[in-house]
């Protein structure tokens, strides 16, 4: 039950986790390593993106952050609570909320506002406070007008925003989005990313975004790359995406703008820094063009 005093919301050291694979008769077979000596440190208020291809262990790590899974080896403190101590489970789940991949499978109630209130009901919050916090949360994600709707009538992006509202109504210090944008269309993805960035900026909520869309990781303060259950790279988006070849070896892409800039640079165009967004690319090309007087300025 004891809480460690720390300013780091997540503090994991040498985490390991194994899945047991069962054959068709239900006998335990080989043990597969999902996490292998992972060290992770996240400061309160940071926006961290975790990248990795399928099977890299990033979702397993996400489930540890909410104590849905506990490590086989190593220690993990979430908000100062040891996840291995079963008595801490409910405190950890209150301080770290999770948004999952499939929007349909995580909405429990048949009315938007009731779903947002679900977590609060579980915590035993008094009725009047539930309503207040549900309103705050729905306004924060821009879904207050839809509070009386059935979740079945919402778009994917709206459903994920409701799921996020359900999490932030519980006033967590940290939100983990476990591939929450994977099943959405581009519009829905933008909606969700805009919402979490806003929360991160205004409410100082720590955001851990697990994704395989590189464009989303660009906005993060820090990017962690995982492969085969290990953390293989870490740093700012600029540092990470400058290593195009190394990322490719982990079967990951870089954002399109970055890739284009990198390829142009290889062909000898004078682009100095790593480019992350389309705007930066235009800037760089304009700049290069002006300096070398090669072409007319490029416009969008």
């Amino acid at each position: 039950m004891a809480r460690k005093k720390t300013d780091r919301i997540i503090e994991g050291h040498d985490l390991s986790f194994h899945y047991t694979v069962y054959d068709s008769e239900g006998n335990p077979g080989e043990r597969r390593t999902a996490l292998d000596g992972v060290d992770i440190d996240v400061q309160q208020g940071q926006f961290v993106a975790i990248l990795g291809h399928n099977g890299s262990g990033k979702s397993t790590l996400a489930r540890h952050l909410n104590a849905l899974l506990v490590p086989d080896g190593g220690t993990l403190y979430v908000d100062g609570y040891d996840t291995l101590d079963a008595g801490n489970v409910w405190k950890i789940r209150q301080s770290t909320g999770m948004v999952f991949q499939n929007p349909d499978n995580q909405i429990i109630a048949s009315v938007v506002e009731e779903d947002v209130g679900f977590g609060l009901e579980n915590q035993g919050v008094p009725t009047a406070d539930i309503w207040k916090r549900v309103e705050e949360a729905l306004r924060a994600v821009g879904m207050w007008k839809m509070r009386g709707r059935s979740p079945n009538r919402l778009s994917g992006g709206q459903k994920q925003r409701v799921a996020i509202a359900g999490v932030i109504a519980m006033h967590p210090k940290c939100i983990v989005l476990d591939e929450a944008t994977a099943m959405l269309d581009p519009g829905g993805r933008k909606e969700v990313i805009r919402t979490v960035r806003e929360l991160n900026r205004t409410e100082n909520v720590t955001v851990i975004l697990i994704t395989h869309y590189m464009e989303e990781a660009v906005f993060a303060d820090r990017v962690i790359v995982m492969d085969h259950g290990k953390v293989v790279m870490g740093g700012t988006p600029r540092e990470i995406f400058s290593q195009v070849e190394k990322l490719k070896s982990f079967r990951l892409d870089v954002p399109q703008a970055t890739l284009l800039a990198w390829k142009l640079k290889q062909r000898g165009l004078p682009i100095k820094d790593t480019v992350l967004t389309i705007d930066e690319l235009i800037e760089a090309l304009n700049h290069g063009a002006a300096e070398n007087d090669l072409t007319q300025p490029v416009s969008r």
Partner: protein
Amino acid sequence: MLKEITIGQYYPGTSILHRLDPRVKLLGTLVFIICLFAFGTTAAYIVAGVALACMITISQVPLSFILRGLRMVLILMLVTALFNLFLTPGTAIVQIWKIRITVEGVKMAVHMVFRLSFLVLGSSIMTLTTTPNQLTDGLEKGLGWMKKIHVPVHEIAMMMSIALRFIPILTDEANRIMSAQEARGADFHSGGIVKRAKALIPLLVPLFVSAFRRANDLALAMEARGYHGGVGRTRMKPLVYRRRDFAAYLVIACFAVLMFLAWRFIHLELPFLP
């Protein structure tokens, strides 16, 4: 084909019946049904019919909408009526060869038709004026006392509301799987009943698999949001009795007493009526 499945056919409205506490409506329906079985005379059924007519008027649900509920039991009603008509022994009115219709048979048939339609109408008034969520809430709270005898009331209510939430999702999914299989040559619409039932098996297997996967995801999501059973839970929309609910209980009691009095003291002798 699957579009027709509607459960909890709620008709939105603001009538007093819509606003009543679901527990009152549940108990009212229960009392109504018990009275129909306990007091089966013409006089009592007239009382029940008048009460039903009043409720339908108060509910502001269009009559055509309510009568739609009767359509579903039409066949059942016909079969019961016919069986009673031909198979009740007694004094014969008409006799052709071995088939005979008796006075008692006619009485029985009329009685059955009225009892069945009153049952259906009475309960559809409840489902039409109560949302599925209110209904499960009402059941959970109204049957709360059963926790003492170890009936998992909260869990049952939670399962019911989750089932209601997932019906449209699984219906969509079933339609998708059907389309996918029809695209590859499956045939759901022709052939006899056995053939069509067989055609549904390849639909049910993937549907079950996906339902289990969804259940797994949902359980994880509920756990992540701190769900740990009904203990220590508060309600966002708690059920609170208001004055109108007590008045409604009084009305229900009056109805039961009236039914009893009509059954006990008024004996109408009508031809062909029970």
